[in-house]
C-alpha cells in the first residue's frame, strides 16, 4: 500500500484516517448498489468521488455493451456547477485527448470554462472495456497519491458494480424477453383456440349448409358422422344412420352393388365414387353421386373416410331423356334406313350418324373422306356423284342419288338431300340426310319398268283399241251390207225370184251403208276435238312433276339431270297435262339422243325462265347426238324422225299442243355437243287464253 510520507504527523494522521474512512466507504459501495442499474451506480460513484476528493468535476463515460452510443455522466463541484454542462465537458475531453477513452492519459491538465484544471482518469474494467472515469480539480498536483488510490479503488468497485448491473440487466432482459415470448405465445394460443373454435363452428356450418350430403366413416367402413342435410334428407337420426344404419335409405336394387363398391374402394385405399338411389324422408328415391376420399396420418394409414353425396337425379333424368331421344332417333334412323351427316366439303370433314355408317357398312371408327366415299360408289354413278359434289361446293342445296357397292359386295341405292346450314370461315357446312332406298328403288325400278311397259302397252293398246273401235264400228254395218247383199242376190237368183224380199234386203243394205258412213263422221268428230282444260299453273312445279316421273328412267340411262328453275316465275294459264306431255316428250327425246354417248357426261339441263312480253320459256338442253341445222325445221313435222324406232309424231304433237297455247317451239344445235329444244308460251288468258276458254265452252 502506498501512503503519503507524513510531513507533520498530526496532518498525516488526519489525512490517513480520512483516506481509510473514504476507502471503507468506497469498498462498501457495491453493497449499496445491489439491484441498481448502471445510471444509479454511476450517480452514486460520482457523488462519492466529488465529496471525498473535493473535486470540481467527476465524469464517467460508459461504453455501450455492443457498439451502441456511449453514455456520459458528470457531477460538478460548486465552482463549475453553473459554468459547464456535462456535454461540454465530454466534448472538451474528446477534443483534448481523442475519441478513444482507453488512450486517455491517467493524469493531465485541461482548460475548462477558462480555468486550468488538473485531471486524473481511471479505466472502468480491467482493460477499460466498460468506460472511463475522470476526476478534475483546480488544485495543482491533483491527484495526489491518496487521491489516485481512492480514484482507482472507486473505479474498480464501480467496474464490479457495473459488471453486476450489466449481468442483472441481461438477466432482466432475458427474463423480460421470456415473459414477452410467453405472453405472445399465450396470446397466439388463445387466438388459435378462438380461431379453431370459430373454424370448427364454420366447418360445422359449412358442412351443414353445403347442398350435399356429407358424411365420414371409420377406416373399417362404419359411418360415424352425417351432416344435417344428410339426416334431414333421409329422415334418420344420427344414431340410426351411424355404423351401417344408413343402408336402410339405399334403394334395395342398388344396395348390393353399392356395398360391394364401398368395400372395393376401402380395399384399394384410394378415392372412389359410386352412384345409387337414396330414399328421401318422403319415400321418393333420388339418384346420388357418392364420392369418398381417405384421410391419412403421418404414417400413411387411413384414419377416416370423408364422403359427399351429390343429388344427380335431374342429371340422371336428363341423361335418360337424352338416351331415350338418342335411341329413338337412332331407332328412327335405323327403321327408316335414314342416316344423317354434317359435312364440311372444303375441309373434307364428315360427321356421320350410326345409321350412315351402317348404310355404307363402314366401321364407325373410319375416318371418312370424299375419297373413301368415292371408293364405294358404283363406277357408273361416279360422274353423277362428282357433279353433285361440284354443285354442293358452290354452296347450293343439293339432292342426290347413287349406288354404292359395300365392302361385302352389296349393291345399295342411296338417295338424299343436303342443304347449307351456315358458312364457317366462308365455306359451306352441309347438313343432310341420306336413305338406303335399295328396297324402294328395286321396287321402283320394277314399277318404272312396269310403268314403261304399261305406257307402251297403253300406247299400243290405245292405238289398237282405236283401230279395233273403228273396225268394230265399221265392220258391223259392213257385215250387214255383205250379208244383205248375199241374201239379195240369192233371192233374185231364186226361181221364182223373191223380188220383194230382195227389195227389203237391198233397202237394209243401203241403211247399213249409211250407218258405216255415220261411223266415219262420228270418228272424224271425235278426233277433231280441240278443247284444252285450262288452269292457272306454275311451270316450275309442272316441270318438277315430270322430272320426278322421269328420274328412274334417266338414272337407268345414266343421265345427269340438272335443273335451274327461275325464281318468281309467273304462273301461266294452260292445259297442265298437255304441257307436261310436251316437257316429257322433250326429256325423253334428250335422253334418247344421249343413249349412244359414252365419251362424255350425259348431261341434261332443264331451265325455266321468264321472257319479255309476259311469256314463259322452258329449255331442255342435252349433250347428245345433236341435230343438223338444215333439218331443224323438219323436226316438228309429223312422221319425221331421227330415231331408229321412232314414229315421228312426238314433236309434231308437241308443236300442236304448244301452238294451241299460242306458243312457239323450236330447236337449235348447241355450240358444243347436243341440242337445245325450247318452247315459250304466253302467260295469261288475256290475249290468247280468252279464245281458248271460249273454245272450251263451245265444245
Amino acid at each position: 500500500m502506498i501512503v503519503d510520507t507524513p510531513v507533520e504527523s498530526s496532518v498525516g494522521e488526519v489525512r490517513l484516517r480520512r483516506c481509510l474512512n473514504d476507502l471503507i466507504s468506497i469498498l462498501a459501495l457495491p453493497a449499496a448498489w445491489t439491484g441498481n442499474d448502471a445510471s444509479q451506480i454511476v450517480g452514486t460513484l460520482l457523488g462519492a468521488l466529488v465529496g471525498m476528493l473535493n473535486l470540481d468535476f467527476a465524469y464517467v463515460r460508459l461504453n455501450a455493451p455492443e457498439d451502441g452510443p456511449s453514455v456520459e455522466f458528470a457531477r460538478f463541484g460548486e465552482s463549475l456547477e453553473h459554468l459547464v454542462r456535462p456535454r461540454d465537458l465530454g466534448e472538451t475531453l474528446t477534443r483534448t485527448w481523442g475519441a478513444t477513452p482507453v488512450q486517455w492519459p491517467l493524469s493531465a491538465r485541461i482548460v475548462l470554462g477558462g480555468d486550468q484544471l488538473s485531471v486524473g482518469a481511471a479505466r472502468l474494467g480491467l482493460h477499460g472495456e466498460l468506460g472511463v472515469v475522470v476526476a478534475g480539480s483546480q488544485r495543482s498536483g491533483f491527484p495526489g497519491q491518496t487521491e489516485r488510490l481512492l480514484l482507482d479503488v472507486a473505479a474498480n468497485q464501480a467496474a464490479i458494480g457495473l459488471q453486476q448491473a450489466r449481468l442483472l440487466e441481461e438477466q432482466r432482459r432475458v427474463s423480460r424477453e421470456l415473459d414477452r415470448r410467453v405472453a405472445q405465445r399465450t396470446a397466439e394460443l388463445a387466438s388459435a383456440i378462438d380461431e379453431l373454435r370459430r373454424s370448427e363452428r364454420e366447418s360445422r356450418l359449412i358442412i351443414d349448409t353445403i347442398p350435399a350430403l356429407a358424411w365420414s366413416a371409420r377406416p373399417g367402413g362404419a359411418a360415424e358422422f352425417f351432416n344435417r342435410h344428410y339426416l334431414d334428407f333421409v329422415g334418420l337420426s344420427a344414431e340410426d344412420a351411424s355404423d351401417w344404419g344408413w343402408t336402410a335409405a339405399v334403394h334395395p336394387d342398388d344396395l348390393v352393388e353399392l356395398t360391394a363398391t364401398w368395400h372395393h374402394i376401402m380395399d384399394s385405399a384410394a378415392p372412389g365414387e359410386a352412384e345409387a338411389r337414396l330414399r328421401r324422408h318422403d319415400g321418393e328415391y333420388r339418384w346420388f353421386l357418392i364420392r369418398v376420399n381417405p384421410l391419412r396420418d403421418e404414417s400413411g394409414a387411413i384414419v377416416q373416410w370423408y364422403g359427399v353425396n351429390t343429388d344427380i337425379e335431374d342429371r340422371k333424368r336428363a341423361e335418360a331423356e337424352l338416351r331415350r331421344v338418342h335411341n329413338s332417333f337412332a331407332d328412327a334412323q335405323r327403321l327408316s334406313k335414314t342416316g344423317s351427316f354434317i359435312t364440311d366439303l372444303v375441309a373434307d370433314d364428315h360427321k356421320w350418324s350410326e345409321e350412315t355408317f351402317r348404310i355404307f357398312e363402314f366401321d364407325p371408327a373410319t375416318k371418312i373422306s370424299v375419297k373413301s366415299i368415292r371408293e364405294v360408289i358404283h363406277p357408273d354413278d361416279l360422274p353423277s356423284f362428282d357433279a353433285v359434289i361440284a354443285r354442293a361446293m358452290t354452296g347450293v342445296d343439293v339432292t342426290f342419288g347413287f349406288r354404292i357397292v359395300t365392302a361385302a359386295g352389296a349393291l345399295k341405292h342411296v338417295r338424299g338431300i343436303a342443304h347449307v346450314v351456315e358458312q364457317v370461315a366462308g365455306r359451306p357446312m352441309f347438313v343432310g340426310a341420306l336413305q338406303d332406298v335399295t328396297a324402294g328403288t328395286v321396287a321402283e325400278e320394277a314399277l318404272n319398268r312396269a310403268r314403261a311397259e304399261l305406257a307402251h302397252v297403253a300406247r299400243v293398246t290405245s292405238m289398237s283399241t282405236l283401230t279395233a273401235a273403228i273396225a268394230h264400228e265399221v265392220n258391223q254395218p259392213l257385215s250387214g251390207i255383205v250379208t244383205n247383199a248375199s241374201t239379195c242376190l240369192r233371192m233374185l237368183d231364186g226361181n221364182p225370184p223373191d223380188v220383194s224380199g230382195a227389195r227389203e234386203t237391198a233397202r237394209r243394205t243401203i241403211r247399213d251403208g249409211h250407218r258405216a258412213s255415220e261411223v266415219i263422221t262420228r270418228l272424224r268428230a271425235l278426233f277433231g276435238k280441240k278443247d284444252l282444260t285450262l288452269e292457272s299453273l306454275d311451270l316450275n312445279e309442272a316441270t318438277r312433276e315430270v322430272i320426278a316421273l322421269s328420274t328412274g328412267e334417266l338414272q337407268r340411262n345414266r343421265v345427269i339431270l340438272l335443273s335451274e328453275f327461275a325464281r318468281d316465275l309467273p304462273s301461266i294459264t294452260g292445259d297442265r297435262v298437255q304441257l307436261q306431255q310436251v316437257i316429257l316428250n322433250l326429256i325423253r327425246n334428250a335422253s334418247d339422243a344421249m343413249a349412244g354417248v359414252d365419251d362424255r357426261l350425259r348431261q341434261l339441263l332443264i331451265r325455266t325462265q321468264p321472257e319479255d312480253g309476259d311469256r314463259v320459256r322452258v329449255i331442255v338442253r342435252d349433250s347428245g347426238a345433236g341435230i343438223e341445222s338444215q333439218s331443224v325445221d323438219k323436226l316438228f313435222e309429223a312422221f319425221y324422225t331421227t330415231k331408229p324406232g321412232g314414229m315421228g309424231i312426238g314433236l309434231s304433237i308437241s308443236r300442236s299442243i304448244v301452238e294451241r297455247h299460242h306458243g312457239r317451239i323450236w330447236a337449235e344445235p348447241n355450240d358444243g355437243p347436243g341440242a337445245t329444244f325450247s318452247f315459250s308460251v304466253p302467260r295469261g288468258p288475256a290475249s290468247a287464253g280468252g279464245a281458248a276458254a271460249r273454245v272450251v265452252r263451245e265444245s
Partner: protein
Amino acid sequence: MTDRRSLVSVVDDDESVRESLPDLLRQFGLAAEAFSSAEAFLSSGVVGETQCLILDLAMPGMSGPDLQRELMRRRQDIPIVFITAHGDESVRPDLLARGAVECLFKPFSEGALLDALNVALRMR
C-alpha cells in the same frame, strides 16, 4: 246337203246382223232364229233343238265365250260358229281350241259362212 229342218240360232246384239243373217240362212234352206243376247237364247226353249249356234263374240252381259262355257256346263253340245267385228285374229286359236267350229270376222263372205255351217252340221 243339209237337213231342211236343221235349226240355226243366231245370237248377236247387233240388230243388222239379227235382221240379215237369218234371211241368208233361210236362203240356205235352214231354219233360223235370232236372239239379241245369250240370256235370251238360254231362256228361249230352242237350245235343245239348235243344231248350230252362230254366236257373236263380244256382247253386253254374257259374252260369246261365256255362253259357250255355260252350254258345256249344261252338257249342250252345240257346234258354235263365232262371229266378231273386232278384227283381232289372236282370239281365233283360243276359241277353236275350246271347241268352236270356226271364228268368222265380220264382214264375212257367204262362202266362208257356208263352209263353217257345213262343218258344224255334219258334226251332229
